[in-house]
């Protein structure tokens, strides 16, 4: 799991996390489960910079294996062992 564009500051500056997310249903872990887990286990401060309602805040792109999560089901996207999830905050500077 990788954060970029300022999101890394929310996790003590650590950019890459290898996580093992426990899930109830043995057969299925969805992006919504990962988000909930990240929010309660990784985010150290200002959760509003990462989460809004039950999804990521506006301006954050979520990538599952280098693909926009909108292309693979959004909150319902199923995750498998070794999947790489990247949260990218869009930049506006120049």
């Amino acid at each position, binding site marked *: 799991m990788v954060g*970029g564009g300022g999101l890394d500051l929310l996790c003590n500056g650590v950019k890459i996390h290898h996580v093992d997310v426990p899930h109830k249903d043995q057969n299925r872990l969805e992006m919504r489960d990962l988000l909930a887990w990240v929010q309660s286990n990784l985010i150290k401060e200002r959760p*509003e*910079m990462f989460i809004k309602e039950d999804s990521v*805040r*506006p*301006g954050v792109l979520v990538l599952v294996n*280098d693909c926009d999560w909108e292309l693979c089901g959004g909150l319902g996207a199923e995750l498998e062992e070794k999947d790489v999830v990247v949260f*990218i905050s869009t930049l*506006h*500077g120049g």
Partner: protein
Amino acid sequence: HGEAVNGLNADMIYRYSRHLLLPDFGVEGQTNLAKSSILVVGAGGLGSPILLYLASCGVGCLGIVDDDIVELNNLHRQIIHPEAFVGHPKVKSAAASCREINSSIKLVVHNEALKGSNALDIVSKYDIVVDATDNLPSRYMISDCCVVLDKPLISGAALGMEGQLTVYHYKGGPCYRCLFPIPPPTAACQRCSDSGVLGVVPGVVGCLQALEAIKVASGIGETLSGRMLLFDALSSRIRIVNIRGRSLQCVTCGPNAIFTRQMFQAFDYEGFTQSSMSDKARPELHL
């Protein structure tokens, strides 16, 4: 050589010979470049390499729009501006530098901020737009304007040690609003003037923007439309990811969108993003 071949005269054939030798580019690529006009919005960190490379490569007409003044603390990254131009308009400084390296292209300077009231007028004169601005409301405004006028948009950003770029509204691809229908909270909108930027990071992003603009203008290769390049300078990692296509719900470019020129001109981009287009009040740095 003699007279013009395909619109390229003998001087151009000599000047651009290393382009003409390229099987994937050649006379056709160079001729297309010479016929194209490109508007670069912002003559700062991103705009510097974009303008220098677009000028040198032989774009027919290059437009520069910015209302900023060159300051000494720009020069660590804005390589187009000589010290002698500190205190002068960025567009004048940038145009002078472009003219020095290629006097054979047409340069047009717009010494004003691009905004809803003048954008349609200015952008309509060009084939391609490059977003090299430093703020969120301008990014929405430029994207909407490009959709309304049906122009491809090469969009780049840099902050801290990171950069991002993609191509919007090109060959059926998404626009900025397709990706970001709702603006981020103001707290998430840092600027180079507040948070700093390593000077060469916009250099890398700007060169890649110039490349995308050259590919669109010359009609060669595969652009970043539908993809986004993510650059992390600290670890020298680059990720090129697939992004969503045009959104059916997009209020600007979606199939049911009714975003007219009038609506564009009336839209309050600063209110929408809760953020300012201008960057006049800068913090002072104390050590």
